């Protein structure tokens, strides 16, 4: 069923009796060409592009809970392509371009809202670093603007510019950055994939892999064994747990990241603003709530909840740049499990097991990557060679000394 404004009007006249479920709830079949493990944003996008762009439609997406129950439904919805390194920036810019055409492409309102993202700087050294980044972004075809204090003040009059410890001197802005309705991304991809024949099987946990002589021929699930020519894992925070069942140890630790939403307020924040002297970022949802977050809790965990010290730290960051936030009441907070990699960058690669593919290590930045990750993963699965913008995301890059360490922190996941 094609969605359009005419459809809404005609359904309105018919008392909204003609809408159909957006996807089927099929029983898993015995065999598929491709089985994708995990119906998060990346798994669903992969299935969508496999079917749409690469003509592979005999595909199942297996999900242990309900689709969209993982991080795709828990993130703070920021999209941007303001990276520095050559291995990353072309990939994220490719993703940004896909975001820009996504709603027309999958005929679904994902509320892609390019209101801009601003990273504040507080001293000269930071300004120089951001200028370098701004140039790197432009060289990869992305957009960037350096804002001085006066220009910034016009956009964000509410910031505490003369804070004694962290005076705000200016910012780097990517006008095409912004936010997207995260759940709708999962739903739109799910609907688009389902329409093209992909089976999305929920409540179906993958419990093991069928591997013989180094070749993966299917998976074991809570709903019985399923054969597949190719098995593609993308389970985000559960990466190590799932890949362990194929005997593969990963350069990944699982950490919790928290997010917060305030009560609804009148429009105050133009886009996304991030603090440059501590870890705090904020945007405003379409319902008016301030959506904000900050650091990881910092220790390995699979419990989808964080602790109070980070709540305090995040709120201190908020108070340091926009004291008015202290007047807003906090409505909700929650946590999601991040697949933090050793250099802060992701993987889209073959594994040492033939027919088994891995996508993960997205850290806290995988939402913005969803379209490109799905597209490049589908490319890898269909053609057995990496897409050019994802060619650096290999599992063996540490062995080759080819880390993609944006922050320059070294092999310590909780610092990325």
């Amino acid at each position, binding site marked *: 069923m094609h969605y359009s404004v005419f459809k809404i009007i005609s359904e309105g006249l018919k008392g909204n009796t003609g809408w159909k479920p957006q996807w089927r709830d099929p029983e898993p079949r015995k065999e598929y060409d491709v089985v994708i493990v995990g119906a998060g944003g990346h798994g669903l996008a992969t299935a969508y592009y496999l079917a749409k762009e690469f003509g592979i439609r005999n595909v199942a997406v297996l999900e242990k809970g309900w689709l969209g129950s993982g991080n795709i439904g828990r993130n703070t919805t920021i999209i941007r392509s303001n990276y520095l390194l050559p291995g990353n920036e072309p990939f994220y810019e490719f993703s940004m371009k896909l975001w820009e055409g996504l709603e027309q492409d999958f005929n679904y309102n994902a509320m892609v809202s390019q209101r801009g993202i601003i990273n504040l700087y507080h001293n000269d050294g930071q300004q120089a670093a951001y200028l370098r980044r701004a140039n790197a972004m432009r060289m990869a075809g992305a957009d960037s603007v350096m804002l001085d204090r006066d220009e910034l003040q016009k956009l964000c009059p509410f910031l505490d510019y003369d804070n004694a410890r962290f005076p705000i001197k200016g910012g780097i802005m990517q006008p095409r950055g912004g936010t997207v309705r995260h759940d709708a991304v999962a739903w739109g991809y799910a609907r688009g994939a389902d329409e093209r024949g992909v089976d999305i099987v929920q409540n179906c946990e993958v419990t093991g892999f069928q591997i013989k002589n180094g070749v993966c021929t299917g998976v074991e699930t809570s709903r019985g064994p399923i054969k597949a020519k190719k098995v593609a894992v993308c389970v985000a925070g559960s990466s*190590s*747990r799932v890949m362990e069942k194929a005997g593969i140890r990963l350069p990944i630790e699982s950490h919790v990241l928290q997010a917060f939403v305030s009560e609804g307020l009148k429009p105050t924040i133009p886009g996304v603003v991030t603090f440059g002297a501590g870890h705090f970022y904020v945007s405003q949802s379409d319902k008016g709530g301030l959506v904000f977050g900050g650091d990881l809790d910092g*220790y390995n965990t699979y419990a989808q909840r964080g602790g109070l010290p980070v709540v305090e730290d995040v709120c201190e960051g908020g108070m340091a740049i926009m004291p008015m936030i202290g007047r807003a009441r906090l409505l909700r907070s929650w946590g999601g499990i991040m697949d933090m990699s050793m250099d802060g960058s992701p993987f889209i690669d073959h594994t040492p097991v033939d027919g088994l593919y891995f996508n993960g290590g997205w850290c806290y930045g995988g939402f913005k990557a969803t379209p490109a990750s799905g597209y490049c993963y589908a490319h890898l699965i269909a053609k057995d060679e990496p897409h050019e913008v994802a060619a650096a995301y290999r599992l063996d890059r540490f062995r080759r000394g080819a880390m993609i360490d944006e922050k320059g922190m070294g092999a310590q996941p909780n610092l990325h």
Partner: protein
Amino acid sequence: MIIDHPLLGPRDSAEFVYLGDACLIERPDWQDENALDAFHDYLYLRDNPAGEHRELWFHEQGDRSWLVVTRNTLTHEITKVELARDVARALGRSK
């Protein structure tokens, strides 16, 4: 979380800095034939278990000792706290 420090008693985990899996204590021998592989695995690969995890915490805002904490990554329950020094010595290290 409260970490029951072997010398100082119960301390707030916010006083500590977290490093990661306690396997980092067992640094490979650089002269070994397989040193390259061993160092790759040591530096970059992790078990990352869901359940019991032995991990290194540094008491930065306390006595600056390294601890090996055994903690459940699903429940955050801490079942054992040792001085990393003792763990290393038990493995045959001199310090």
